[in-house]
Every structure is written in structure tokens, then in C-alpha cells.
């Protein structure tokens, strides 16, 4: 028994028919074929699947697609400007070598944007603590932390 869902994803209205057990991340990846959002675990630990739901970071593996009914979802594909210019957070990840294999990266970037929104100019310790729900196996986090601090400062200055 499939259920109809409709929501806004990256500014576009989308609809779909899903099994009730379909997770938001499965809807995004398999129905919409937006594969930038990744699945890195099955216990809500790794944060590879972080997207924004109504502007707030959410683990899309821990939410049913039907729970996003009528809401606005932003994925990594929707973060850059319409003309393709990278978001300051994406730019900072590149500048600070905040990614290696790139698999945790979409979740890290989306989390970074959320941290910058809530805690502009957060210090290193705070940023490290805020990344409690995101795991990276390649970088040792240093580039990620530097990127989030740098982008947060730039975003705060712009705001």
C-alpha cells in the first residue's frame, strides 16, 4: 500500500508514491535520484545523510519520507547558488582540504552550514563538539573544523 508524498526539494515541488517504511534518504536517493546524500550507517551515528528540513539539519536516514510531507528539504545538490557558485561552506571545505574520499562530505557540509547558522564564530572546541553526530574516517577532522570555522566567520560577516 503506497502512500502519496509531496514536498519541496531544493526549491522544486516534488511528488512520489512510497512504501510507508521508505526513509527520507531513500526517497531522495532512489525516487528523486539525488545521490549526493549518502548512507554511511544504520544506527544514526555517521551523519553522511544530513539534509536541511525547513532550514534545520536532519539525519534523513532517521526520518520517514512521509514525515517530510509538505516541508522544504535542501540537499547538498541544492546548496550552491543558482549560477553554480559554491556556497561559502563548500568553498571553505575545498580551501582547507576538509574532504578526502568525499563520502561523509555532503553530510559534513550540511551540518557545517547548520552550525554556522546557530553558532556564528564558534571556537574550535565548540565546532568539534557540534560534530558529534558526524563521522569522517579520512581527514582526522582538522580540515573540516577549519573549514567550518572559516566559513562561519565569512557567513557571519556577510549577514
Amino acid at each position, binding site marked *: 500500500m503506497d502512500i502519496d508524498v509531496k514536498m519541496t526539494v531544493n526549491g522544486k515541488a516534488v511528488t512520489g508514491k512510497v*512504501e510507508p517504511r521508505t526513509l527520507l534518504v531513500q526517497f531522495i536517493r532512489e525516487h528523486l535520484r539525488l545521490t549526493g546524500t*549518502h548512507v*554511511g550507517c544504520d544506527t544514526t551515528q555517521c551523519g553522511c545523510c544530513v539534509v536541511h528540513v525547513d532550514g534545520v539539519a536532519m539525519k534523513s536516514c532517521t526520518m520517514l519520507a512521509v514525515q517530510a510531507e509538505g516541508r522544504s528539504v535542501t540537499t547538498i545538490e541544492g546548496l550552491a547558488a543558482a549560477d553554480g557558485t559554491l556556497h561559502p561552506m563548500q568553498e571553505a571545505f575545498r580551501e582547507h582540504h576538509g*574532504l578526502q*574520499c568525499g563520502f561523509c562530505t555532503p553530510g559534513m557540509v550540511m551540518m557545517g552550514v547548520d552550525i554556522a547558522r546557530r553558532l556564528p564564530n564558534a571556537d*574550535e572546541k565548540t565546532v568539534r563538539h557540534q560534530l558529534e553526530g558526524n563521522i569522517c574516517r579520512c*581527514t582526522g577532522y582538522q580540515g573540516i573544523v577549519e573549514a567550518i570555522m572559516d566559513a562561519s566567520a565569512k557567513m557571519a560577516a556577510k549577514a
Partner: protein
Amino acid sequence: MGEFAIGQPVPRFEDPRLLRGGGRYVDDMAFPGMLYGFVLRSPHAHAKITRLDVTRAEAAPGVAAVLTWKDWAASGYGDLPTAKGKTKRDGSPMYRPKFPALVKDRVRYVGDPIAFIVADTYHQAQDAAELIDIDFEALPAVTSLADASKPGAPLVHDDCENNICFIYTEGDKAKADAAFTAAPIIVKKRFTISRVTAATMETRGSIGVYDAAADRYTCYTTLQRALNFREELAQTLRVPESKLRVVAGDIGGSFGMKSGVFNEVGLVLLGSKITGRPVKWVCTRSESFVADAHGRDNVADAELALDRSGKFLGLRVNNLVAMGAYTQPGTDSGAFSNVGTMAGVYTFPAGYVDVTAVYTHTNIIRPFRGNGRPEAAFVIERLVDMAADEIGMDAAEIRRINMIPPQSMPYQTALSFKYDNGEFERVLDTSLEMIDYKGFEARRAEARQRGKLRGIGMSYTIEKAGAPGYEGAEVRFDRTGSLTVVCGAVTQGQGHETVFKQIVSDTLGIHPDEIHYLQGDTDQVFFGEGTGGSRTSALGGTAVMLATNKVLDKARKIAAHMLQVDQVDYADGVFTNPKTNRSLTMKDVAKASLHPKNLPQEMEVGLNASASHYAKVQNYPNGCHIVELEIDEDTGQVEIERYVVVDDVGTVLNPKLLKGQIIGGISQGVGQMLMEEIRFDPDSGQNLTGSFMDYCMPHAEAFPHIDIKSHPVPTATNPLGVKGAGEAGCVGALPAVGNALVDALSHLGVRHVDMPATPERLWRVMDEAKRAG
């Protein structure tokens, strides 16, 4: 092209794509009509299968096929390839068990694949697995390495005596024994190197596509060495390699783990052949803990002999190394190929290491970042600290007086390695300065006021990188004067694309935006081995450089011909000659090369070249790590306060990426020392650490800012002067953190702390020491 030149901290060219969500990992690929596979795995560490009936599962909704060992046997495929070449103590060949893709009547670890269900959706396949009727007769299992070779231990393979796979020795036993007999001081210890897992953020996965009309297989998968992978897979399928295409997309980390041909690779291909449709299998995270190969798992009984002045006289080690239940090609290498790391940077004249490789009812042990190097480095560097402690000498000083001086290079160690160069004392001094070694006791005293036990620990480690082997590369100009670089190496996040483009761009003067990097597709990559063992800068980089130079040489000849001069000058992509005011760019030459009228007689049209490079000699990256940490006296919680590294990885191609490699390696070493461990229940053999809720991964909060300086001593063993950098961080971190922990607790009489030094373990160590003290 200064901006992209070798040595510049060029941001990565692969990043914009990955940052936009444009990565293409195996799970991102989809094909029309694709089916999904689920593996039914053994819930027992050791059992007989007494009944296996898949009738009900076959009839379940959406199920297209249920494969068991019978289908595998009927397909004509063979077993998966295994390690070979080593011997037992009596010289007889090593024990080589068959490695079936699906077991017939005996399971040998929790996770051993029994059946493969293929269905329209993953959930249908998973549901159908529940309908397989299967009975087991549980048998005694041994998961502990220390117990497995004891008489009477349950056997993993019935005819493999004492579970011994092979024996390997290195060094001169008589000489070492003599050194120990004469030595006034001996320090000895049993070191247990825990079992960990790579836990790549992208799990393993494969898609099999069989084209019946062409009788050809395509496998999209996670790997490190596409051409080697194809060779091993072709042997399994019993087809010529030309019947098989292996394609890697983006690889979400590997660290050695994904390099093997695992069971599921064969299963998706057989599934596709039987159903006539593409079949995808992607490992879930929790499944990965029982399905993946693990890393490390050694027990080393080690001893170091020294004189009263602190000079080392000899090293003896008896090392047990776990193999798991089966082997794959190269999974045995961690037991022997890096034993030399135990010689460290020191001058001791005698060493002997005796290695026993042992089967246990556990997952296969594969190379994991370091593959024997961190294990060996831990042994020697812990022994060095114990020796210093024994004679009351400073840890830096005992290292200094035993270090091989630069003037002794090249230096043949007592354990096979022959170092070509290295400036160990200078690296040590720079590190001591960076951490303010002299000021440490004041920081320790201050921490004590806060109820924290502060310790400092160092390691000076050296390892083999870029072992002899080959790699291939191609540089192909196209008709518009842009170009494609092809290499046999496969990045799993290291940034090969960036460094290779730097090399090509710097030489040919073509902007990196106009260079396409191609890897990992065996239909496109003509030659090479792949990535692993810290080899790609030295081997892949050299191959790319050689191909690039061949193109440049040809372009010079074409340019001279076109400018009607004997020879041309070349700089930054432009050919000139003082005798003419005309000049040609590399692009002009590339375009002109398509027409014979622009070429010297007999020259082939086109501007492209390939290079097949064989590296004869390895190199020896080395470095010093110093770490300061604090242990909470009440809780056992560890905070790393400071961490400095001075590395010598030879010529630095890109300092930004090098730092990334070192820090990433450190995080895995710290993880193993402080929190990570694969643990089995000793009675049932169950994996007790089967998810990210149970297996503790290092998070951002586990680390301070890590300070890194490079001290490049370029090696002459390759034209770029590079030494390997991928594993060095992990190698140095394990012993440095281990030594710092002991230093923090030494006033309590603590002489060693086993890994992982979790808060619970540290609390118990402190509690016990206080009771005893």
C-alpha cells in the same frame, strides 16, 4: 604554471564535484531492470550446516533467484583466490584452505556467506532470506589469536594442525641469541595489537552486469587496484581477462580493506548471469562488521637487549599474527613484509623475528593502513620507552644515542631493510622544539593541580613504502588540444587526480581545467597495478611523469620541424627559438600533430604517450610524533592536548594533501590506541562490536589541532624524490599515544597499557596500581 607546480598547496581538482554531491559511488549507480541482492550469513562462528532448503524463499514475492553453493558449482566458477608462497617450519607449503564464495556444509566465522537472494527490491530479498530453512550443528570455535595455536584448540580447518597457516622468520637467530646472552639489561613484554576494522564511510558494494550476447561481464565495484582485481576475478570466474571489465567509480575510503576480491563480487555476477539483469549488492554498516575483512590482531612477545649506557644490542620477537578463517592474495603480507619496521631508526646489530600466522574463526585479516607497520612500530617504540625507563634515561635521549647517523647511510639494518637516507636526529630535535619538550614538567605539574594526569610520549618510526612493482600511465592529447591522463592507480580519497594533474600541467603548460583524469576502468587503463602500500606518488607519479616527458620530447621535435629550426627552447607550454620570431604553444603542436605535413618524416601522427614504469627499490618515509595527553584521575577519560609531527616523506608534491594524509593516518592510530576494537565473545564467537553503536569511532572531539612540519630528505630511488606518505601517520601515532599514556601513569608504577585504552580500562589500571601501591 607556478600556481599548480609541484610543491604548491594546490586545492584539489576533485573537490568541486564531490562538494556538489556529484560523487559517483557504487551505490549511486543504477541500471535499467536492476535487481538487488542480500547475503544470508552465518550466525555461528563455527558450525555444520545440516539442512539448507531455499524452496520457500524462491517462492517469495519479487524473488528472482536464490543462489547457494550448488548454483556456484553448477556455474563452473572456481573458489576465490587465496594467498600462496610461504612455508611451515619444516619447509612444507603453507596451509591453503579453499575459499568458497558460498559455503557448502561448514561455516567458519560469524558472517560467512551461505546464500545470496536476488529480488526486485532490497527489502524483498531481505524478507525472503528469512524464509530459507537452515539447520546448524554448532561446533566449538576459537576467535582468540593467543589461544588458537595452543594444543587442543578447535580447528578452523580439520586438517590444519594447530591452526598454523605458515611460519616466517627474519634476521639472524644465532647472532641475536648471542647478543641477549651477553646483554646486561633486557626489557621484555607481551604486546597485544588489537583487531580493528577499516570502517570506510562508504561500505563495500558491487553491481554485476552480464551481457549474454557478448558473453562478457562488467563489474562496478569498490577496489584499490582495478587491473589486479580483474586478474583475480577472472581466475575465479575461469574466464580470460578480456571477458571481464572492472570499473571503479568514486571510492569512499579503503585503507587496504576494499582491495580484495570478496565473495559478493562473484555473487552479483553469477546473479546477473542467471537472471539476465544487473544485480546490485551494497553492504549495510552493521553487516560490514561481520562481512568485511578486519585489520591487525597480533600478539608479540618481544625483548630488547641493551648495555648500561643505553645502547641497544639486539631485538628478539615471537609474533603471532591472525589470518582469520581464510586468506586472500596479499592478506598474508602483514605478517612478513613489514617486519623490518621493528628495526626502527636504530643501530642495533642483531635482530631476530619469528612469525607464526594462525587461523581463527574470524573474519579475514586484510592489510589495513600500515599492514604490519603500525604493529611493528608499536613493538619497537614501546620497548625503547621501557628500556629508557629501566635505566632511568630520557626517552628522547635513548633514541638519540641509538639513531643511525646520516653519515652511515646507506644503512643495512639487522632486519632486512636497507635505508637510503634520513636525518633522524634533526627531525627529532625539530619535534622536541615544536612541543617545547623542556617545558613539559611544568605543564605536568599544572595539570596535576586540576586532577589530571598529564603524560608525554614520542615515537620515531620508519617504514617501507612503494615496494618494488609496476605502474602505468598515459597522456593523450585530443583534437582540441586538451588532454586526458590515465593511470593504473586508483584514488580512494588521497587526491591522485590533483597531484597527477599538477605533474602534467607543470610540465606541459596545459591548465588543469583542460585535463581530464581517468582511472579505475580496466577497459580504459592499459597497464598498472593500483594503489596500496604508500606507493602511488613514487610509482604512479613517476609513470605519469615519464609519459608526460615522452609527450614533451615528441612535441619538441614537432615544434622544431614546424619552426624550421634544429631545436627549440621550451618554457611554460611555449616553444621558441632565437632564430625566429614565431612561437608555438603546446596546444598548437598537439593540434598540428594530427597532420603528417607538420611532422618530421616517419613520425607517427598524434600527440600521446604511455609509460610502463617498474620501480626496483622501495623508499623509507620516517618521522617523529610527540603527543601530550591528560587522563582524568576519576574517570579515566583521555584528552589529547597537543600533538606534533615532523615527517620526512622526501619531496613534497602538495603540502596540503600531505598534511591530510598524515593527520588522517594519525586519527586511525589514535582510534586504535584509545577506543576502537573488534571484540568477539570468547564462548560463542559472536562479534560483539557489530555496529557504530558498539564499535567506537574517533570523532572530531577526540583530537586537538595537530601541528605538522615537513623535513624533506628527497630519495634517489625515484625521479620525483618522493617517499610514501599514506601510512606514515598511522604508524607513528599508535606508539606515540601508547607511550604518552604510560608516561602519564608511570608515577603509579604502571609500565604498560593495552589498547584500546578506554576510560574503563584506564580507570581499572589506575585503581589496581593505587591498591598495589
